[in-house]
């Protein structure tokens, strides 16, 4: 086993014990990247070669010099007997939607390809302050708009390490691919409708969307500001907890970052789950979507393997002392996607206004005499298809004459979805749940190019994850076995506000219960 395959908490421990150095860890990760990642995504990336199809392509920008300087600083601190921080020497990757001072911060878009950030996002700054070593910026869907990473303007886009003809999911696909491939034990992603949990499920890693406001958004290039949550991607629950300890908490730069005390997520991790009430909802075992021909809703059951993995998890947790509550109604789940379509696009269109060719980023090279024409050309050439779709729809549904029937209605739906969770988690209510156990995704990773372009169907892939974004509650996706094709299956735990600690505890218990499962020994294709 190589250092790059060890978990973050093991690396941090061995480093403190001076059994390994930060530079050694870094070298191991860089070696792994060299071996499996292939060429980084870039603008006008050209046609895919056969070799490209055998590589992961997590990165847009690798920053080995910066990483080496950080690793050497950690080693110096240790040599000097100073406290190097709880994540000292642990490499991590950063979804390229976060600003990091002095590095290109592209949002995987042509319009920001030349933008170098002059400041560092709070979660990244906290990781570095804790001694973690940033390896670079990883790929994503353009401006996070997608579920496969294929919409990135930086090609080749990431591939799923488990099966290289599959997508890694998205939009935090570069994050989950880099962690699954052992390029780094940790990554920072963002989750607006499932953008951490869905790729985590697809790539067989742990991905947590914290409570809205638990982790600062400062420095995160906004998609839908009222839904965006930065969160950890890791290979196990303990590492996710370790990372939460570092990135969670109030921030003077983000007034929506909650001023709620941060618990020690590691402290309660091994306490077991005796007496916890864990719910199952029929509304999370099917996908409901509108028939665009006649306007009715149609329902599809989930694949049996996926439902079975959730049922098995429930049985295992019950055996460990949890109380399983069946039949919890979450009736507004099916409205999550339509409401998300409206809210996210209104916010996205507004958030994209600043990319106008005036101050930074792409400006059309053609000389322009007219300001309007300069805007049109710069934005027309700089944005890819996905941002353009979101601008069009966002502008449409927020127009004065439509906002009542779309935007305001979507906000009311959002309140209803929140009420579903309030009822399920109400300590005085009929269900009194500590967590809801669900599948993360309706399918395992789909083939590259299979869904891209069919925006609606791709978005319905988020139906089981987006309600937590509407409601603001925390959720975590855990690897829960492999399907018949050898692709990872994810299960999801959703909990009340600020109870990430409980979700992580349940997740850790589930890890223990499945520790000897054969699938836990299977290595992803990219590492064979």
């Amino acid at each position: 086993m190589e250092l790059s395959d060890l978990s973050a908490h093991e690396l941090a421990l061995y480093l403190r014990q001076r059994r390994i150095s930060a530079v050694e860890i870094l070298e191991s990760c860089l070696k792994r990247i060299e071996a499996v990642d292939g060429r980084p995504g870039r603008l006008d990336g050209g046609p895919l070669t056969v070799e490209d199809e055998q590589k992961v392509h997590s990165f847009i920008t690798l920053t080995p010099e910066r990483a080496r300087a950080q690793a050497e600083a950690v080693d110096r601190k240790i040599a000097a007997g100073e406290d190097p921080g709880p994540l000292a020497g642990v490499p991590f990757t950063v979804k390229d939607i976060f600003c990091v001072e002095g590095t290109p911060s592209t949002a995987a878009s042509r319009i920001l390809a030349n933008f170098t950030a002059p400041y560092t996002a709070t979660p990244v700054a906290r990781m570095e302050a804790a001694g973690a070593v940033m390896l670079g910026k990883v790929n994503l869907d353009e401006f996070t708009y997608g579920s496969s990473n294929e919409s990135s303007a930086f090609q080749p886009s990431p591939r799923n390490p488990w099966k290289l003809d599959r997508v890694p999911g998205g939009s935090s696909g570069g994050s989950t691919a880099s962690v699954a491939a052992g390029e780094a034990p940790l990554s920072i992603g963002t989750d607006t409708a499932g953008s951490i949990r869905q790729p985590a499920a697809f790539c067989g890693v742990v991905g947590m969307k914290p409570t809205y406001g638990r982790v600062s958004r400062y420095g995160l290039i906004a998609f839908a500001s009222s839904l965006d949550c930065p969160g950890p991607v890791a290979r196990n629950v303990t590492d996710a907890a370790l990372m939460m300890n570092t990135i969670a908490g109030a921030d003077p730069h983000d007034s929506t970052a909650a001023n709620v005390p941060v618990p020690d997520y590691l402290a309660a991790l091994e306490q077991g789950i005796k007496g916890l009430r864990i719910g199952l909802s029929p509304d999370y075992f099917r996908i409901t979507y509108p028939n665009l021909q006649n306007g009715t809703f149609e329902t599809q059951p989930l694949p049996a393997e996926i439902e079975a993995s959730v049922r098995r998890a429930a049985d295992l947790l019950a055996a460990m002392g949890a109380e399983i509550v069946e039949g919890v109604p979450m009736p507004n789940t099916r409205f999550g996607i339509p409401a998300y379509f409206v809210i996210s696009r209104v916010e996205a269109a507004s958030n994209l206004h600043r990319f106008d060719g005036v101050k930074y980023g792409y400006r059309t090279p053609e000389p322009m005499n007219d300001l309007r024409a300069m805007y049109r050309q710069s934005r027309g050439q700089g944005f890819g298809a996905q941002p353009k779709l979101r601008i069009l729809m966002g502008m449409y549904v927020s127009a004065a004459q439509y906002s009542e029937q779309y935007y305001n209605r979507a906000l009311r739906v959002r309140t209803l979805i929140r009420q579903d969770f309030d009822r399920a988690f109400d300590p005085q209510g009929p269900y009194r749940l500590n967590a809801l156990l669900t599948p993360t995704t309706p399918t395992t990773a789909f083939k590259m190019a299979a869904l891209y372009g069919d925006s609606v169907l791709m978005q319905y892939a988020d139906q089981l994850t987006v309600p937590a974004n509407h409601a603001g509650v925390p959720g975590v996706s855990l690897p829960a076995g492999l399907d018949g094709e050898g692709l990872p299956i994810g299960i999801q735990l959703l909990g009340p506000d600020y109870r990430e600690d409980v979700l992580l505890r349940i997740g850790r218990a589930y890890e223990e219960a499945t520790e000897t499962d054969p699938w836990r020994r299977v290595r992803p294709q990219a590492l064979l």
Partner: protein
Amino acid sequence: MTMTEYEAVIGLETHIQLNTQTKIFCSCKADSWNDAPNSNICPVCCGLPGVLPVLNKAAVEKGVLLATAMHGQIRPLSFFDRKNYFYPDLPKGYQISQFDQSLSSGGYLDLPVPASASPDGQAYVRRVSITKLHLEEDAGKTKNAGGQRFVDFNRCGVPLVEMVTGPDLRTADEAAQYLTRLRQLLRWLGISEADMERGNLRCDANVSIRRKGETHLNPKTEIKNVNSIENVRAAIEHEIERQIREVEAGNRIFAWTLEWDEDAAVLRKMRSKETEADYRYFREPDLLPIRLDDAWKTAILAGFPELPLERRARFIREYGLPEYDAEILTAERKLSDYFEAAVRAYGGDPKRVSNWLMNDILRMLNDRGLTADQIKLAPAWLAELLKLIDSGTINISTGKSLLQKVEESGLSPAALVEKEGLAKVSDDTAIRAVAQEVLAENPKEVEAFKGGKDTLMGWFVGQVMRKMRGKADPNIARQMLEELLK
């Protein structure tokens, strides 16, 4: 038809820069007057990717003071919204503003219109309603030079209150009076420098006309880019006359946006606005609502001052001051505070204090460029000085010269009188001796006086006073001279 058969309907839209230390959503310095372009900027106010606004509470507090002074209803919960439009001086492509649930709703100002600004020469009061009062961020500035467009972001994020009146004003003079009173109020409350030339206070005027007696509103024009109260008055005046001419000629009034050209004193039609009509307002998700709970509100309003118009009325009522005096003494809060403190310390006739203030102290303030709280001659010392005069210890001219001496030395009037021996000499023999001296030295004048030139008496008194460096009691000196010249 003549002008008198029409009335103007005027509403004013003001943008008020609040004089906070830092900007509304970041910690950059708010005041960039005379600073180089783009020297007070940061990632937040330049709208870099990923930044978030953090509300400066001082802006809310100043907004609450203004809303209270305008009799607005402060909302316990108000929200920020995004006003979306593209312009190079707006780095985020949206302005953080307030839309339907702003800081305050309603309100009014009872505007006294003096006789001098009244069409029929009679003073009256016009109630001006407030239809909008909200907080927002200022935008930057652009300019064209050498075929290029330049942007200065220094002003981005300076806190603004946008305050809009109902269509309640009827003359250009009323509009000017409103702005004068607003400027006075803003300075009184200490919430804005309110300098129109510097853009601290900006005003757009909506103007329409109608026949007297009509109640509907006709299409209005909007006058922009006026940078002094006098220019607002002149521009509105011009526009009213233009509209009457158009209507009299049988033409329609179109909803133009007009720009005031100060040098030519004419209104010009502006290029149509480069912004979208639909601003697609929605709640700003990056900011929490403003929760003005009772504790915060109470803390903000603790020590809320008596307002200038109230104080003006009270000065007339309580101290029997003429309107003229009350107006001047309440033009500025510190001066009016000074007046009241001096009146209290003095205990005598308030009008006497007023006279000294308006004649002497104001001149001293102007000459030295100071405000009433900055001079060494504190209200108690002015009172002391007046008492010294009242008691006959010093005469008026000594009193007047003492003002400067107190200010320069920092010593109290009584101490100076003591130190410099300025007390009036009422010793008859000393004055008689000097009077004899004066007469002996000026035989020609004595001759003339005796020849019937009575007016020379004043000159003789003056000579005695001069020799005694003003310390003589002039009444006694006159008495002596009259005796000696008999």
